[in-house]
């Protein structure tokens, strides 16, 4: 897992990951590259990350991939990422294509739902929490329940 201040150097990361696994005998390599879209007048998106829990989340995916003979990698930006540059790359390596195609889908979707990362629109230099696009993590809400008071 790799975290960077600001936009990712997508070509460097893609190429390095390719080289790292060049003799691992994987038949399929599927990266997912996430790029900031220009919309709603934003100049950038900005990200906060809570690294300890992101690391455990990622480690559990390393194990899950390994049990299928596959490998996952991930890089994410911290702080401001201007439009048309990239904030996120994840990738799956696998001997076989079906495992790789299914795993990249599950990995990216679980990332969106459960990786402890918070997104902000940057408009006129101000950070606004992207609440409408955010998802409560699994198990959310337990502290809000009125218990046996």
């Amino acid at each position, binding site marked *: 897992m790799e975290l960077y201040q600001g936009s990712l150097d997508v070509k460097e990361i893609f190429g390095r990951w390719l080289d790292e696994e060049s003799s691992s005998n994987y038949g399929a390599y599927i990266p997912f590259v996430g790029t900031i879209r220009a919309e709603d007048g934003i100049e950038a998106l900005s990200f906060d990350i809570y690294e300890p829990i992101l690391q*455990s989340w990622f480690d559990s995916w390393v194990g899950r991939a390994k049990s299928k003979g596959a490998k996952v990698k991930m890089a994410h930006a911290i702080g401001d990422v201007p439009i048309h540059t990239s904030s996120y790359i994840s990738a799956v390596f696998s001997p076989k294509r079906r495992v790789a195609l299914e795993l990249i889908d599950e990995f990216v979707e679980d990332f969106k739902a459960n990786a402890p*990362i*918070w997104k*902000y629109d940057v408009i006129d230099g101000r950070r606004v929490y992207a*609440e409408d696009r*955010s998802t*409560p993590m699994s*198990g959310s809400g337990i*502290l809000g*329940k009125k218990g046996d008071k």
Partner: protein
Amino acid sequence: MVKIEFLGPISQEPLKIEASSLEDVAKTLQDIEEISNWLDKCAVAVNDEMTNDLSTKLKDGDRVSILPPVCGG
């Protein structure tokens, strides 16, 4: 004492409170106006371990993190 940390967009400094379980934490936080509205949609970690069990016991020095809705990528 237990330390409560608020992550991401919740603009609240860490709190130190007396609590022997997450239930105690819930009661305390529900009474703080700036925080109570977040609770229904926040997840919880104790010492960086996610949990969805309100009966989780806490001991002196434990660290509770409050994680609001996420959107990586």
